[in-house]
């Protein structure tokens, strides 16, 4: 394809979701039914455009298109596109999942009072996400990186009257901000070392110390956005937002932006930083899957599951097999979005039924559900397919990508201390199977609990369609036509990974056997809380409050006290001293200075009066003074 045409198509691709966002603001309240329709249509065009760009530009040489953005000192900052196969995959994933979510929202959000704002932010998010994956430099990428965080903030807090939603939104943004300090530090280091922020140039840092520092700082930024330990507690709380939003932002696209960044910046990372990455990823994968085991809220289970899967991706990048990370990102986007939308469909159906029956209980709590496979057959089927992909059953896309991750981890570990981390991933994969089974069993197969009071009917077609599409996309053929081969079209386009037949066979045996065991285990049990640490996500929220929020507030109030008591206080003391001094001076003025002057005047007057009395014309006083003078004179002469 000609480059000019490609560029203009890319620009249109990026602009379309933004246009959709503006359009939703401009449509008047009277024609509000147009909103979902139009934005869905625009996203459909975007997706078709993205698909055609991918098909024509796949495996073409890298494309770098830049224009001057602004000048800073002697350097020029650019804005533009940097296109390679990674970008194309991300572009496809973002626009496709966004389309699915728009379609789903059509039914799910119908009649919402803030529908207008919802579609605006959904379109704006898609625009920013596309901008993020296409950006040619670190600064532009960071701009979109924060803007997707902002979209996430407004969408988590979509139901503004729910205070919990507002709290979750603030928490998500602030925790991400803390991690983003790392990103900004990385930008500062790279800029001062290479005088550039272009993605292709910043990796040329020569100084080892700064190279490591930049890598670690960038990793911290990623740990916030991609919810890695210890920053992951914002993601489960973010489930307060509407479910389609969780599917789009908190499962398929925004949270994987961190993985995407790691893949993009891969040449920057030194061996040491990559090792840290594996450790962080494996820890997160294990902790996430363990926490998912003890949740009761469907969306929380899925959130912890997402955390665990993101950990796998980070670990995969750390092993050096960034192509594998991208593959898992790709497959995970479909099945996890499918799971979230499936959960959304269940919630929608049950809410409707609740409304009709005037019964109220928390429909997201799996302790209240059960036996839904009869009333929601299609949703159940789709949900089970996506769960199977999540657990890594053969014939599903999850098997291929997880197999590839395990192989690369064992390749990386060799026979050293690193083997611990490789095996921890095996454990977390097994745990994944168990919690998936638990979720599926208690929603669809177990004896119905509170749902017996309701008459539930299957969700409308508009909600089912994205579910069906996404579950079809969770099958093996999206990766390659051979169900055990992960080096399909995608991996051939990035970097093919090595094989290890032993591991592949091991997982083929392990996955079904663990599933059967889990099935057998859950079959006869009811759900009871077991471990509070896991259920509360390792108390990260409390830890946050304890080491960040509380000290922060205490220091803040101390600061205010310093301001009022010490700075203003000393100021007031100064003013008081000055006023006192002024009073003293005034006293000095009236009594000492004026007193002296008045005293002199008084003395003069008295002396005058005395002198005047000598010549007052009174004969008696004349005689008196004459006698006195005579006596003084006589004394003087005689003695």
């Amino acid at each position, binding site marked *: 394809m000609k480059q000019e045409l490609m560029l203009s198509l890319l620009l249109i691709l990026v602009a379309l979701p933004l246009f959709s966002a503006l359009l939703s603001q401009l449509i008047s309240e009277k024609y509000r039914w147009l909103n979902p329709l139009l934005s869905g249509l625009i996203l459909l065009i975007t997706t078709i455009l993205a698909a055609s760009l991918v098909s024509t530009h796949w495996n073409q040489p890298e494309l770098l298109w830049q224009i*001057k*953005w*602004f*000048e*800073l*000192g*002697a350097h020029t900052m650019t804005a533009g596109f940097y296109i390679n196969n990674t970008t194309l995959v991300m572009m496809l994933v973002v626009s496709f999942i966004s389309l699915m979510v728009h379609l789903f929202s059509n039914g799910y959000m119908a009649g919402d009072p803030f529908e207008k704002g919802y579609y605006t932010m959904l379109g704006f998010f898609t625009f920013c996400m596309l901008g993020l994956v296409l950006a040619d430099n670190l*600064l532009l990428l*960071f*701009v*979109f*990186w*924060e*803007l997707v965080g*902002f979209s996430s*903030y*407004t969408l988590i*807090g979509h139901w*503004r*009257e*729910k*205070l919990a*939603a*507002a*709290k979750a*939104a*603030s928490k998500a*943004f*602030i925790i991400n*901000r*803390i991690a*983003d*300090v790392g990103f*900004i*530090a990385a*930008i*500062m*280091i790279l*800029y*001062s*070392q290479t005088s550039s922020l272009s993605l292709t140039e910043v990796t040329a840092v020569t100084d080892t110390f700064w190279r490591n520092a930049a890598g670690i700082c960038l990793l911290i930024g990623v740990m916030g956005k991609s919810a890695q330990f210890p920053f992951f507690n914002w993601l489960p709380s973010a489930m307060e937002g509407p479910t389609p939003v969780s599917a789009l932002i908190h499962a398929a696209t925004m949270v994987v932006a961190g993985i995407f960044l790691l893949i993009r910046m891969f040449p920057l990372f030194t061996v040491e930083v990559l090792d840290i990455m594996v450790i962080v990823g494996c820890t997160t994968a294990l902790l996430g899957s363990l926490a998912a085991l003890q949740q009761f809220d469907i969306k929380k289970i899925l959130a912890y599951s997402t955390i665990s899967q993101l950990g796998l991706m980070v670990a995969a990048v750390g092993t050096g097999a960034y192509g594998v990370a991208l593959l898992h990102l790709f497959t995970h986007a479909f099945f996890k979005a499918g799971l979230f939308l499936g959960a959304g469909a269940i919630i929608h159906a049950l809410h409707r039924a609740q409304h009709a029956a005037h019964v109220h209980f928390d429909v997201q709590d799996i302790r209240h559900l059960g036996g839904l496979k009869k009333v929601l057959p299609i949703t159940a089927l789709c949900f089970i397919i996506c769960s199977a992909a999540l657990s890594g059953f053969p014939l599903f896309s999850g098997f291929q990508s997880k197999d590839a991750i395990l192989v690369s981890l064992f390749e990386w570990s060799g026979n050293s201390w690193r083997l611990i981390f490789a095996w921890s991933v095996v454990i977390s994969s097994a745990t994944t199977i168990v919690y998936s089974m638990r979720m599926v069993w208690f929603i669809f197969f177990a004896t119905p609990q509170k749902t017996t009071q309701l008459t539930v009917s299957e969700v409308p077609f508009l909600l089912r369609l994205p579910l069906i599409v996404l579950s079809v996309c969770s099958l093996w053929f999206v990766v390659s036509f051979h169900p055990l081969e992960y080096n399909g079209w995608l991996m051939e386009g990035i970097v093919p990974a090595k094989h290890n037949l032993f591991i592949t066979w091991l997982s083929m045996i392990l996955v079904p056997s663990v599933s059967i065991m889990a099935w057998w285990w859950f079959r006869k049990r009811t759900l009871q809380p077991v471990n509070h640490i896991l259920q509360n996500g390792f108390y990260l929220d409390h830890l946050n409050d304890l080491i960040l929020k509380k000290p*922060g*507030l205490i*220091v*803040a*109030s101390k*600061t*205010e006290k310093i*301001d009022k008591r010490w*700075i*203003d206080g000393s*100021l007031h003391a100064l*003013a008081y001293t000055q006023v006192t001094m002024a009073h003293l001076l005034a006293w000095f003025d009236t009594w000492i200075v004026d007193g002296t002057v008045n005293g002199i005047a008084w003395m003069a007057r008295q002396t005058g009066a005395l002198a005047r009395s000598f010549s007052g014309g009174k004969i008696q006083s004349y005689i008196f003074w004459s006698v006195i003078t005579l006596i003084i004179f006589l004394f003087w002469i005689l003695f």
Partner: protein
Amino acid sequence: MHAYLLSLLLLIPLVGALLMLATPNVHRSLFRWIALGVSALQLIALVLILSHYNTSQAGLQLSELRPWITLDMGIWGILQSNYFLAVDGLSLPLVALSVIIITIAIISSWKIEKSPKGYFTLLLILNAAVIGTFCAQDFLLFYLFFEFMLLPMFFLIGIWGGARREYASIKFFLYTLLGSIFILIVMIALYLSTQSTGDAELVIHSFSFIDMQQSSHIISNAVLDPQNNVTILGISARVWAFMLLFIGFGIKLPMVPLHTWLPDAHVEAPTPISVLLAALLLKIGGYGLLRIAYPIFPDIALQLSWLVALFGVIAIIYGALAAMASKDLKRLIAYSSVSHMGFVLLGLASVTPEGVAGAAYQMISHGFISAMLFLLVGVLYDRTHDRMIQNYSGLSSKMPVYFSFTLLAFFASLGLPGLSGFMAELMVFLGAFKSGSTNYLLHESFAIIATLGLVLGAAYYLWTLQRMFFGQYHVKINLDNQLTDVDFREKLMLFPLAIFIIVLGIFPQLLLDYLNPFADAFTNTVIEGGKTIKVLLQK
């Protein structure tokens, strides 16, 4: 024609003020229309100035130089001060900011009830003084305008302010007066040490900033002659002079711990005056450091840059923490101003083109953002006469448009990329960090610690949003429950600010066209000036 443009910009408000004084006090609404007319004329003049300004050229432009005072003082030489107005890449954006903000402040003063004649007259005098301060290139003239700002401000807070207005206005006045005295001392010392022509026999003293910046124009054996090395209490006179200027302009900025006049002045001032105070008057502190303290004392500035940066970082963190503890919305925003002005100090202390451009960018950007924030507080205060955060909740459902504006302003202030505040702060960070490896003035840790300000900013703004705008709608019982959304007049003043904030966030080159030449020239002047003086001292 364009030789008189700057004088025109100054004269318009002064003539307007005279006209207002001559107008009988019968039609009370007439005064605001006069003020608005003056602003409109000024906007036209501003457009003319911008069109005559050449951005590809560094240095002063549109100069007006007229002899003002020439006095033969015998053996003391000749005193000379000029009416010298000119703008460069730093002044012009600030002048433009002033004209725009004053227009918005006049719209925001539309409902002033208490003696509008006096109010608008003072506002116009303030207008002229602010613009004069940014244009003057002669120290005496600068000082004149600088001092002249105090008077209208004192009365505007002291008469039209809130309950504790007298306390606030006196505090403001005393604080700034102290700063002015410090600046005055330095001005006299500088005047005694500077000559306009280097003639050994006949010394013509000069107040011109340009002369003061050149080491060849220093009178030998004068107080501030670096070779003379006068010491006062064991510290060199030049260090004293720099420190006095730093404190003098630091009070204006304001810099922790000289900032406590600001929250009180803001809380007590009426909305439009808060807007002017935050958007314009604070900028004079940063402007003074960039125009006077750094270029005139480059040797000391390079030596003490770490101190300036340290105060910057302290202000960033301290202001943010104090904002977090504020219960009054206006006080919170006042402290956030303290925090944001810290970035100006950090940026200019780095003496890198990035940092200096960032400091200047931050001044402009904060001008728009803080104006918007104070206007938004004003909108709420007009309706309920209460600013306590805890008395509101769930406002977003009652006032959706107001919520959208607040969301934008808060996120701009906390540094969301794509809005102007982020661009400024980013440049400051890049410059401050780069300084550690290029000119070795600041350690890298300054920039790293300053990034904490971003986290704290997010924390206090989002917490405020959460408390005031989310949740169920509820206001304190005795407040008016009939909260209405923003009306047309309020949109008229908020909308342009929102546009400026977004445009400057996305297209920074629009402003950098002006700032870059200045930042380059500034960096060169300071670094080269420092070197020259060092060489002089070594001889």
